[in-house]
């Protein structure tokens, strides 16, 4: 077991290094650099940035050096636990991401937990009561959840909130708490704001997992061991929960790997629409303004989440499913 963990951790480090390389290359691909984006913005403000000034800025920010040198500088910073300075914000990247990271993680976990808590029982119900009215209702809602883009759902929910209740559903905090330091009041305020974005974020995941759970469980329910268990007179809920559900659980565990990064990157547009102070909009913005170090750091962060998520889901799978455990540790 320990050897397995060590092997996985080593692989994770190598994967992360590979991610830094790919990230850096991808972010250099679009034409121009931050200074170009900045010159475009300044000219929109009516300021003329001369070519010489642009060159001076490039020099000050090290953008005139070769990509390799820029990359090595960044890698060196990462080794020391730093991530450099965001050009646009003129502040260290860690400070810019700051609180947003924790709110993102909170929101992501909340969304994942909601996904599970809702998807598991609904999936079981749909499978056990296949073709019942309830199954049809859930299937219908599930397909809507899959088909409607979440940002549209967010817009609709906001519009309805405004129209029917005259409340503004955007953001994670009320105006009076936005600037306040952390307190019980602020925490409660956050709890009040959390459900809407949490549900909107969770909905596509719920729909998907319900369908997977239903399909898997339907397969399992027809297996001979289920018939045997029933024949032996086991109570129906025990029959279902103890064996087929456990076997059908695999996708739940294996989805953590992509759910973690999805809730950051997949939620960008939802976060923009709902004005959520998460990392997503920051990533979008840094890509538009070609704010290299900020963008690469966030992508690296996403990579890190994916790697951690995959590791967690593998461990979970091993715990749930003895077949996998035997295979991996051999």
């Amino acid at each position, binding site marked *: 077991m320990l050897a397995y963990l060590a092997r996985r951790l080593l692989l994770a480090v190598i994967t992360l290094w590979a991610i830094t390389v790919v990230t850096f290359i991808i972010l250099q691909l*679009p*034409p*121009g650099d931050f200074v*170009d*984006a*900045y*010159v*475009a*913005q*300044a*000219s929109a*403000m*009516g*300021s*003329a*940035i*001369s*070519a*010489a*000034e642009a*060159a*001076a*800025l490039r020099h*000050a*920010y*090290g953008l005139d050096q070769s990509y390799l040198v820029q990359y090595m500088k960044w890698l060196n910073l990462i080794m020391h636990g730093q991530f450099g*300075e965001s050009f*646009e*914000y*003129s*502040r*260290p990247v860690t400070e*810019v991401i700051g609180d947003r990271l924790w709110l993102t993680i909170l929101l992501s976990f909340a969304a994942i937990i909601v996904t599970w808590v809702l998807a598991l029982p609904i999936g079981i119900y749909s499978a056990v009561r296949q073709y019942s009215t309830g199954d049809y209702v859930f299937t219908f809602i599930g397909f809507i959840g899959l088909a409607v883009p979440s940002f549209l759902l967010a*817009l609709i929910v*906001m*519009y309805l909130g*405004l129209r029917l209740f*005259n409340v*503004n559903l*955007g953001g994670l905090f009320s*105006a009076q708490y*936005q*600037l306040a330091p952390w307190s019980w009041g602020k925490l409660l305020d956050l709890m009040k704001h959390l459900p809407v974005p949490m549900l909107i974020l969770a909905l596509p995941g719920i729909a998907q997992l319900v369908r997977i759970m239903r399909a898997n469980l339907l397969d399992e329910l027809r297996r001979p061991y289920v018939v045997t268990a029933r024949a032996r007179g086991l109570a129906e809920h025990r029959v279902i929960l103890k064996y087929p559900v456990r076997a059908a659980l695999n996708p739940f565990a294996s989805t953590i790997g992509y759910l973690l990064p999805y809730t950051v990157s997949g939620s960008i547009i939802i976060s*923009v*629409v*709902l*004005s959520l*102070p998460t990392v997503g*909009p920051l990533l979008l*913005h840094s890509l*538009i*303004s*070609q704010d290299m170090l900020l963008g690469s750091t966030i992508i690296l962060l996403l990579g890190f989440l994916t790697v951690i998520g995959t590791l967690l889901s593998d461990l979970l799978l091993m715990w749930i499913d003895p077949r996998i455990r035997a295979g991996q540790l051999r």
Partner: protein
Amino acid sequence: MSQVKLSRRAVLSGLAASPAAMEFLRSAMAEAQTSLSQSGLVGKLEGPTMVTDPAKWPTKFAEAPMFADLVKAGKLPPVEQRIPAEPMVWQPLNEIGKYGGTWRRAFTGPGDVENGNRINSSDKCFFWSADGSKIVPSVAKAYELSDDGKTYIMHLRKGMKWSDGAPFGADDFVFWFEDMYSNKEIVPVPIPDMSPRGKPGRIVKVDDLTVRFEFDVPYFLFEEMMAGDTNIGGGQSVRQAQKLSYGAYSPGHYLKQFLPKYSSVDACNAKAKAAGFDNWLQMFHYKKDWSLNTELPTLGPWKMVQPITQQIWLLERNPFYYAVDTAGNQLPYMDRVQFTLGENLEVINLRAMAGDYDEQERHMDLGKLPVILDNQKKGNYTVHLDLGFAGADFLLQLNQSFKADPEIRKWLTNADFRRALSMGIDRDQLNETFWLGIGTPGSPVPGESMPQNPGPEWRKKWSVLDIAQANAMLDRIGLSKKDSAGFRVRTDNGERLRIQIIAVQAFLPYPKLSEMVANQWIKIGIQADVRELERNLAMTRVRNNEHHIYIWNNGGTELLYLFPRHAIPVDPTEAYMGPDYATYYASGGTQGTKPDDPNILKMWDLFSEAASLKVEGRNKNAQEIWKILADQQIGIGTVGQSPAGLGVRLVSNRLGNIASRVCNAQHCRTPGNSHPETWYFKT
């Protein structure tokens, strides 16, 4: 303003009073726009009145309660010591206001610094009257231009202070000129604003309150440059934010500690490293940016207390602000300005309609006007439409220096071809669809109320729909052959002539507008391909001289010399009408290509000569330039003088001293010159 040609706009603005106007009004009522013209959405240009006679100034002063407490605690000097002996005195638009309240507003992120710059724009040395026509004092109280136009003397206010209480004076101008502007690492090349005819000017201290600007050639235009939204005259907020280093003055007493000149490069770099910056220059750019650095001394009505990088960008009243009302109350009335982050414009518009903002004109979408009006009662706000003065909110700029394809070049540089394109545009259809009929169709020439307008006929020149004449013109210049689909073909290889239009998403949906124009051009047999590009990529194409036609507006060109780039190719920063030519002009002929079109050379002569002319001569030159532009159509105007940019204003009914119409123009720094420091919360 009484000579304004009658148009729907004139009716809307309530300017029509003559019998002919009444007749026009009646016919306008018959149109579908009746509700709009009766709605009173467009008011009259108005604002607070500046009291310049010292005999009428107040002698007793009062201050906001939040400062009174600080004074009592001994943390702040009393109000009479904080305001200058020669303050700026405002008679508010309607009444003396009350202190208090937070002005809630929206911003879109750290790139939206202009949002706050404009609110603090009374940190400019000179500004414009409420109607945008006259230069008025601001930070400086007066100026004189010498008879030869080579010396400009500026007089500052006695006893004026920075927001940290340090004295403000001539030394701050000298610091900017010697330590920032002349430092090649900060500003590598001189700006044209300070170098008429390429000859660099100087700033000299005469005494603590008097500054002299010296030039080698006559530079009468400089008075306008100091009042305009220019690199030299824009003020500290806008010209020293976002890594810029212009703006004529800077708080030397604070910024010296970050400059190597006052210690050493090593010491400054070490300090920068310790604070998390790579080098001193990066740190300097941060320290002099009012939107990022809370410690930076400023002059505007509000100082920043929470930076723009946060979810909420917060400004708080400046205890040393230099203006008072006629009752002696130190301005501003409102305690705070709170910008809340809204990264999506749809969301900002939605929130505005819910009444979440107390005053908001920036980011408001003209296309949503019907819904915005619908929600007035519910959101407890009133809508005002502030019409602009510029000729074109949607301007097709034809690249005159294009070379990549000789056939395309031949047509882009052919005046009749351009005129035909212009006459092939149905401006009324554009106006009804995208401006809700509120704009004014015509050429790029600015509105008739502007001093540089050459006459009403030039607003129409080649700019009225005439398919027959356009087709005849195209046939005559050698484009008579058409393919089977009815499109005109190239003269070199017989393939269809394809003109490319580059459009980016901006104040208006430019790509959609371009598609409509492309559709209209089918009738004159011209195939136009609209390319929607991201702004960065589009700019790169332009710099490489690769575009045929680029879409932008010509906002700011109503005062031609202050912002000429969207009228004539002189500024390589955004030279959509010919990057190679603009480079040639800006470099004094050392780079770029010399135009072969005598009209461009003629405009350049008129333009550069104007700097040395007095105001009448300058306006005459500008009129001549506009005549050439209207006749030559290197920029094709469509619809303008509308509220499309910054002109849809939602104001909470709780606010007082609000103008029914504010000057919506670049030089007015909308809403800056309506002086938000005089607005107040009635309830």
